[in-house]
């Protein structure tokens, strides 16, 4: 470099030879920590990995997928050796998938992360040391979601260690999250809705002398509905709790089949009445089965161990809220229409027939593991 060009260097910083965009080194670290569970993604430039551990096996200046994938174990060890996440002790992280992606300055290795921490409530400590020993301008661009609260930070050599307090509002947020999940599940759970409706359809009717007539007062209908809904709720709450706490567990195929069968029986009971007075008993008995069904959803969602009861309560309340919304929509309308042929023939008989049919298909599908219609 000629000495005169010294005067120019300041201005040269942003200029480059023709090639890919040049920029200083960044890695993109996205972490989601929910209770003890950690998941995330870490994008690290292939050029940086090559600079640190050497990836260009054949020395031709080009990195192929073959050269990169052959070193996945080394890349994992190198990267995870430079990142500590702690929550009540070290969180054990592992790379569950290696992918690639492109950012503005070239190709990146994408490390999909999973892990778990000893505690689910304490503050989160993060120690990031990637590349700092080789590239002092390297930065880790962190986006962290801790129990539903988002944080972002630029991790530099002097700011590579950071501590994030678990949010005060996170408990409430968690409760709200499970509440919404509960509501959502009852709304998309057609089998639960159909079962409930099958039991509610006759609530505005009275079966006398082999004929259905409208019930005399709204109060009578309401009492019937309350009995049924309460019985269903109490029953599925019991089994939902038992199953979630892993005190009782049933094979899901059996549970799903039994739920379909419960819908079949509830609908059939409307067409050929066997149980008329104590429908709440039916709601209770089959509610026990439905509770196992709810529990499998909750298991899939994953329950934070520290906020187990709160989440369970939230989910259950969500289910009841969704249920009450259905009842609130159904009851006034059914009561008004109870003496019409439309209700008695169309809705009551027709609806029960339709429900019976659909539930029978479900039963066959679930019992024999077939796929006939989508539900």
């Amino acid at each position, binding site marked *: *470099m*000629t*000495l*005169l*060009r*010294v*005067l*120019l*260097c*300041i201005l*040269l*910083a*942003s*200029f*480059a*030879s*023709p090639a*890919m*965009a*040049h*920029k*200083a*080194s*960044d890695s*993109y670290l*996205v972490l989601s920590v929910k209770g003890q569970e950690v998941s995330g*993604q870490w994008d690290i430039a*292939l*050029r940086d990995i*090559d*600079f640190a551990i050497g990836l*260009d096996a054949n020395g031709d*200046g*080009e*990195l*192929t*997928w*073959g050269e990169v994938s052959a070193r996945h174990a080394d890349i994992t060890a190198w990267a995870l050796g430079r990142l500590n996440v702690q929550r009540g002790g070290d969180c054990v992280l592992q790379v569950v998938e290696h*992918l*690639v*992606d492109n*950012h*503005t*300055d070239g*190709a990146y290795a*994408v490390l999909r992360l999973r892990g778990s921490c000893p505690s689910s409530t304490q503050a989160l400590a993060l120690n990031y040391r990637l590349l700092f*020993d080789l*590239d*002092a*301008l*390297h930065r880790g*661009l962190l986006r962290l979601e801790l129990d539903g609260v*988002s*944080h*972002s*930070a*630029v991790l530099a*050599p002097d700011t590579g260690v*950071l*501590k994030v307090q678990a949010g005060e509002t996170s408990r409430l947020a968690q409760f709200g999250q499970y509440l919404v999940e509960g509501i959502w599940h009852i709304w998309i759970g057609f089998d639960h809705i159909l079962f409930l409706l099958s039991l509610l359809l006759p609530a505005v009717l009275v079966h006398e002398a082999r004929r259905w007539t409208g019930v005399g007062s709204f109060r009578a209908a309401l009492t019937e509905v309350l009995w049924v809904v309460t019985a269903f709720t109490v029953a599925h709450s019991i089994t939902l709790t038992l199953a979630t706490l892993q005190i009782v567990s049933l094979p899901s195929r059996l549970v799903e089949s039994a739920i379909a069968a419960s819908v079949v029986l509830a609908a059939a009971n409307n067409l050929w009445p066997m149980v008329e007075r104590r429908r709440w008993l039916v709601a209770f008995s089959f509610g026990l089965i439905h509770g196992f069904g709810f529990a499998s959803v909750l298991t899939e969602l994953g329950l934070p161990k520290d906020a187990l009861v709160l989440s369970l309560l939230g989910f259950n309340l969500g289910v009841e809220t969704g249920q009450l919304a259905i009842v609130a929509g159904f009851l006034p309308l059914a009561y008004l229409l109870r003496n019409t042929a439309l209700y008695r023939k169309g809705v009551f008989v027709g609806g029960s027939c339709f429900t019976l049919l659909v539930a029978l298909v479900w039963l066959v599908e679930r019992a024999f593991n077939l796929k006939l219609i989508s539900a």
Partner: protein
Amino acid sequence: MVLAILASAWVCLPSAYVLAAPRLPTDQAEVLERLPMRPGDATARELTGLRAAVTRAAQEATTDTLPATQLAQRYFDLAVARGDPRYVGYADAVITPFAQSQAPSLLAVRGQLQQYRHEFEGALADFANALKVDPKFASGHAWRGAIFLVQANYPAAKTECDALQALGRNTLTGGCIGLVHAYGGQMEAGFAALERALDGTQNAGNRLWLLTRLGEVAAWRGQVAKAEQYYRDALALGQDDGYLLAAWSDFLLDQKRPAEVVKWLANWDASDGLLLRLALAETNLKLPSAKAHVRALGDRFAAARMRGDTTHRAEEARYELQLAGNAAAALVVAAANYRVQREPRDARALLEAAIAAGDAGAAQPVRAWLESSGFEDAHLRQLGVISAQVKPVADAKVTTPPNTKPELRP
């Protein structure tokens, strides 16, 4: 512990993350990335040798800073030659273990790295300390002169020019004093000093630099034909030079000749600074390629903002104003830039942003500089006058289109 929560980061996060579509390649032979050099290249071998020396010195636990200084300087030269900031980070990491050292050559490298990051005070101190140990260290004076010029501290810059003259470094002195005069209101004297320096050197690199600066000074003086001749002479030297291309492109854009910019910069989209000029020219010509280049620039500035990088703010301000049509954002960036860098181009970026955003007060520092320096660029002085008269533009944030004509008070 510093938790650098960036409130603004969330705004710019999407563009960088939305790009992301991780995939699983299926072909083992697919080339994912081309490295800047092959292990067998001469430069790579040279770096390997220098690195080995650093490792050896570390193992022997010597206090010898020479191997680290040599490797860091080589990395920094690479960064400048290739415009690749990763090498700056490598250089920085190499000398980090010697934070306490007062060896002049190491201080000089560290000073260069600091000025690259616009940490001017630290850089000035390092060069000053190096000069204390080695008073004949000419590039120490040249660096300090360059930094003072950027800071618009012309008396201090002049002191460094005098020191270079005392050391008998005539070409360096000519470049230094020529710019001090040109920036400081004595354009003609500056011009003459630069021309004298040009006559006194046959070194192609020196000539390219002097011709480029002469082109700029001529353009400031309104001597369009003369400016073009200097630029063409510089380009005829056939050396790739980002600064020359940027100055030449700005000249062409000012002369409403965007088609030539597209021709010159076709293969220079790796550089943010040159991509900006290319996108400006393409947008001017309504070329289909403009859209992708404008988006790429936006992504790159967003990526830089995310990491807290503020070294390209003058360019970012022009992007916001002339390409994104966001005068308010342009003003924020240009004002922040002007607090650190105060060269004529930085002044112009702030004036234009302030005028478009209708914020007369924001341009006050530039008007103060025009007043005190007496800088003789007629166009810039005119912008200064206009900037003092603009009225606030209602809702400048979203409604200001690019190149908005300033609203003048009756």
